[in-house]
């Protein structure tokens, strides 16, 4: 996204500018003013996002182990060494990265799908007024409003082996399992992570879809009702197609946030994530801070960024093409 945008010609012929000629007064101030207004935002984005990203890319080509941390500029160049280590899938480092990548992809797809589904269903069901709607809406937003760590810590408590709610309900009350299960280690941890992620994430989809629904003209429904379309048909023929532009952005944002999520797995599992729930950002964090090998960690981050760039690009290409086809 960034790179394509940078290559584009800077001069813009916007329809707004062409439509109405601007008053000539204070023209010089007008030219300088927008840049002045943007300056703080620009400086901060440079300091916190863009410059660090460039440094991160440089670091990925260096042999930056703990001996060079104090003065990272003196670390020797390693060419593509860090990348070779990261993608050598026969060696332990690459194999673990690949595994973590697949876990993250699976986790993200499931989580985004569930968040979107629950959020959209709830928003559509709550489109009409009924008693208790306001209260329910406030309640549904609570998981989103809770700070991540307090929400996740509560789930950690619920997933405890001996004194947690989940085992109490599944084992003691419903007798579904032979013995209390471990939820935060072993294979179950994937489902634990997914549950927490969906619990925390769906209200955002709900919020956005709810806002999107308010922009659908009421006349559309009235016309459809006059034509004899039932409520299910209205949902299918009017609501869902009208939500398409909203969904395009929503799904992308959910995907990127979930894929990059660090807070949830970090608080849920601590520094050592179980293998079945080894999400990529925690994996890279560990590769960097636990083994103190920042070069490899940076290379992995760059690969992650490249992957996200490609996915985002392809996604935008296909969705906007689909949208254009639908409009035509």
């Amino acid at each position, binding site marked *: 996204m960034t790179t394509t945008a940078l290559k584009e010609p800077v001069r813009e012929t916007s329809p707004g500018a062409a439509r109405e000629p601007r008053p000539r007064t204070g023209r010089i101030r007008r030219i300088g003013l927008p840049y002045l207004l943007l300056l703080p935002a620009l400086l901060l984005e440079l300091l916190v996002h863009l410059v660090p990203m460039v440094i991160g890319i440089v670091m990925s080509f260096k042999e930056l182990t703990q001996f060079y941390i104090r003065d990272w500029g003196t670390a020797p160049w390693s060419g593509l060494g860090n990348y070779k280590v990261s993608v050598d899938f026969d060696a332990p480092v690459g194999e673990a990265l690949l595994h973590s990548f697949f876990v993250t992809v699976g986790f993200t797809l499931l989580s985004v799908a569930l968040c979107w589904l629950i959020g959209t269903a709830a928003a559509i069901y709550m489109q009409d007024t009924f008693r208790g709607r306001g209260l329910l809406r406030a309640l549904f937003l609570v998981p989103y409003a809770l700070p991540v760590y307090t929400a996740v810590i509560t789930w950690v408590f619920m997933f405890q082996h*001996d004194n947690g709610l989940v085992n109490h309900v599944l084992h003691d009350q419903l007798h579904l399992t032979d013995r209390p299960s471990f939820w935060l280690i072993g294979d179950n941890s994937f489902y634990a992570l997914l549950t927490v992620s969906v619990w925390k994430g769906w209200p955002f989809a709900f919020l956005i879809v709810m806002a999107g629904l308010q922009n659908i003209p009421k006349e559309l429904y009235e016309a459809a009702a006059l034509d004899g379309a039932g409520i299910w048909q209205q949902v299918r023929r009017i609501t869902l197609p009208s939500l398409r532009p909203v969904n395009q952005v929503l799904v992308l944002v959910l995907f990127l946030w979930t894929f990059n999520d660090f807070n949830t797995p970090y608080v849920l599992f601590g520094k050592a994530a179980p293998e079945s729930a080894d999400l*990529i950002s925690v994996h*890279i964090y560990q590769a*960097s801070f636990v083994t103190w090998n920042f070069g490899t960690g940076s290379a992995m981050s760059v690969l*992650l960024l490249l992957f996200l760039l490609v996915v*985002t690009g392809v996604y935008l290409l296909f969705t906007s093409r689909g949208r254009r086809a639908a409009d035509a």
Partner: protein
Amino acid sequence: MPRTDSALAPPRSFVWSRRVFLTLLTGFVLVPVYVMVSSSLKPLADVSGKFRWLPSGLTVRPYIDIWSTVPLARYFMNSLIVAGAATIASVAIAVFAAYAVSRYEFRGKRVFTVTVLSTQMFPGILFLLPLFLIYVNIGNATGIALFGSRGGLILTYLTFSLPFSIWMLIGYFDSVPRDLDEAAMVDGCGPLGALFRIVVPAAVPGIVAVAVYAFMTAWGEVLFASVMTNDATRTLAVGLQGYSTLNDVYWNQIMAASLVVSVPVVAGFLLLQRYLVAGLTAGAVK
């Protein structure tokens, strides 16, 4: 709403599926909230042994002990300062930037918006360490301590909410008719006068929504807080983990502390959620 007319009342199948779905969802949402609230009032024996739905007795002891088990008041203060300052700065900067993009044509406008938005997709882990190095180097060169200080965290957090805030406010400002601020300028206001007298008052819901988002982002962030703070500047996000690294895990205290930490944000969010929905409707999803 038009569809609540009796002639157009939703069919039974819709009403029943809605009832079932919303009931299940309410349960899913509420159980952790119930666990948090009830456990925070339980004696230690209740949370150490088998889980029980109903406490054997109620006690407010956890709410007293949380302040001495870890220096919670200090973490609270740090979080308040960091999140508060980051919010104010982020909103102010976003207002200026969004005004520029919404009202002016200039070279590089598209590059700016696309670049700012695309920072949203950067994995935090990619710039964590470089940022750490930059802050340390700025500190060494100028004596301004950014690493380990609240200032560094404020700078970092305000840029986290900046892209979304700018994006949302552009949409919101676009919906304020241009004629209004041009009329104000004819009446002798400068561009900034028009911004503060006309555009900002008309965009209050959007600005409130952005402020809520910025505060929540800063209040809840864990990754940078865990690397960039020290004992004196530790925020709640890291500080709260202090309860669980002890040998005896005081779950009732953890739940009490979680609740105390959550209440200001959740209450603020629920009070202002109308603005957020209105702001999203006018800005982000238009």
